[in-house]
């Protein structure tokens, strides 16, 4: 019977399958995602050209009208823009994940003998790389218009690490949203609706002292403000927070780490369970 032949033939021709480790599978997926960026450099527009436009817009159009204590406005601005760029990682991860889910690519990965978390790990790492390219472009733009790191290498690097940590925390928000929503357009609409108030009602572009008291309270407790303030202090871009600023801005480095851990603790379980739920159907 043909079935008997089948048992002797098909397996004999099989190559050795050695399911990759989580690290190897994830890095393969990162390779694939980065290849996407190389093929479609326009994917980087959100964190490069757009951010540069923000820098120019605020530095030269609005900046003159914004009073900042103890620093040049451009120095004040750059850390804020970099945090904003990092916050966008969550939108980037969400859109990438939804697109892969929508197109059946995640199904394809799930049909392979790899850890399913590799899909998320790969996505997260490539999104962080994506945002980091944006931060690097911001730093170069900043250097051109007069922004400097004034407090030495260690503090300077620490600020970049804080940015990465904060981006990592927000990635989970992105995975959560990306797993829940069905279309890239919906994700884009939702994420930008969240990102804008999150990055504007903060100390990113203007000092909160000039805001109405209630808004100032929101802005000063906004995690984005803590990270921005931490970067400013570590890079020596301007004076410490105002004496009457809320508690988080008085201890920005510790609070940034705290917020990152808290956000991760809240969103990581939500994200993983939403992705699992989506993956069971």
């Amino acid at each position: 019977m043909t079935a008997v032949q089948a048992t002797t033939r098909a397996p004999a021709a099989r190559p050795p399958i050695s399911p990759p480790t989580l690290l190897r599978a994830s890095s393969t997926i990162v390779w694939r995602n980065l290849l996407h960026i190389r093929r479609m450099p326009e994917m980087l527009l959100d964190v490069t050209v757009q951010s540069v436009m923000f820098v120019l817009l605020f530095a030269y159009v609005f900046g003159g009208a914004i009073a900042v204590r103890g620093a040049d406005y451009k120095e004040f601005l750059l850390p804020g823009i970099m945090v904003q760029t990092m916050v966008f990682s969550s939108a980037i991860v969400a859109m990438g994940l939804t697109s892969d889910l929508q197109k059946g690519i995640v199904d394809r990965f799930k049909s392979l003998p790899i850890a399913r978390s590799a899909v998320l790990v790969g996505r997260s790492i490539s999104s962080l790389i994506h945002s980091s390219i944006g931060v690097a472009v911001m730093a170069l733009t900043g250097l051109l218009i007069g922004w400097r790191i004034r407090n030495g290498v260690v503090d300077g690097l620490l600020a970049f690490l804080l940015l990465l940590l904060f981006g990592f925390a927000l990635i989970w928000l992105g995975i959560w949203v990306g797993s829940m929503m069905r279309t890239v357009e919906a994700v884009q609409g939702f994420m930008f609706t969240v990102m804008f108030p999150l990055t504007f009602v903060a100390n990113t572009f203007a000092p909160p002292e000039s805001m109405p008291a209630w808004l100032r309270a929101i802005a000063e407790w906004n995690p984005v403000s803590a990270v921005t303030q931490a970067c400013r202090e570590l890079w020596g871009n301007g004076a410490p927070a105002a004496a009457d600023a809320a508690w988080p801005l008085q201890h920005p480095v510790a609070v940034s780490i705290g917020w990152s851990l808290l956000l991760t603790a809240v969103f990581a379980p939500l994200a993983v369970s939403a992705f699992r739920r989506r993956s069971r159907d």
Partner: protein
Amino acid sequence: MTTAPAVEAIDLAKHFGATRAVDGVSFVVPEGSVLGLLGPNGAGKTTLVRMLTTLSVPTSGTGRVAGFDILRQPTEVRRSMGLTGQAATVDEILTGRENLKLIGSLYGLPRKYVKDATERLFARFDLVDAADRMAKTYSGGMRRRLDLAVSLLAAPPILFLDEPTTGLDPQSRSGLWAVLRELVSEGTTLVLTTQYLEEADHLADEIVVVDKGRVIAAGTPTQLKDQAGQASVVVTLTHASDVDRAAELMSSCSAEVHVERGSRRLTAQAGGLGDMTRIAAVFETSGIELDDLGLARPSLDDVFLHLTGHRAEAGGAADLTNEGVAS
């Protein structure tokens, strides 16, 4: 048969809220054979395939692929099978070659093997010229072939195909059929879903007809056609003026005669060839001129209509398989 079945569905069910997408389905696919899961859109075919390939977790029941339990040994199942999903799930931004490299690396296959297998598969699927182009420039047929090449990279003994030819033009479809038949001749077990009766008839050794999440019939294509009931004799007259006389004559031979005046066609229920020769003899003596006289056996579409009360393909005409045509 001494070997274990390649694929088994054991009372599989999947409920989405109140919807019973799959409602207790069992079947067995012997090694080296082709099972066709036939049913209309929304019958639960895709959900069945998703459960058997470990993409979706069943609400109840289980299944085995290559002897491995889909719930308890998902990794072994994934190593033993390939899946070509409904939408060609290739990465559009990568080139054809990069798609295979990606999947090869995720299987942990040796680099050298992936390279050689890629050349072999691309030659086989006529993709050599397109190998270094982004998949988004491919035609629908090429994407399916690339998808299939990706599924075959690790040479799985069992291949699941979810509506492999939906949306393809007839030429690409028959090309894909040829490839699938070749795989079967090499010993691969196929489980394919289709809403095309012709496709199931063409490829499958066994057909399981699914409707509303349940199996409503199973058997070989011939068995299913026999189930749909009798064959019929179809007569096409040369002159429209003979229709009434012809209907009268045929009624004397068969209990049920159906008349289509416009096309000058009369259809009579018939038990088999005996009835056909009797009707032929009657017309012979009557002197009525005929364009055509033949025996029509029910198509799978008729089978589906008979089983479910609705047609399988929206707007799909019943293609009568005429046997014994005389003109």
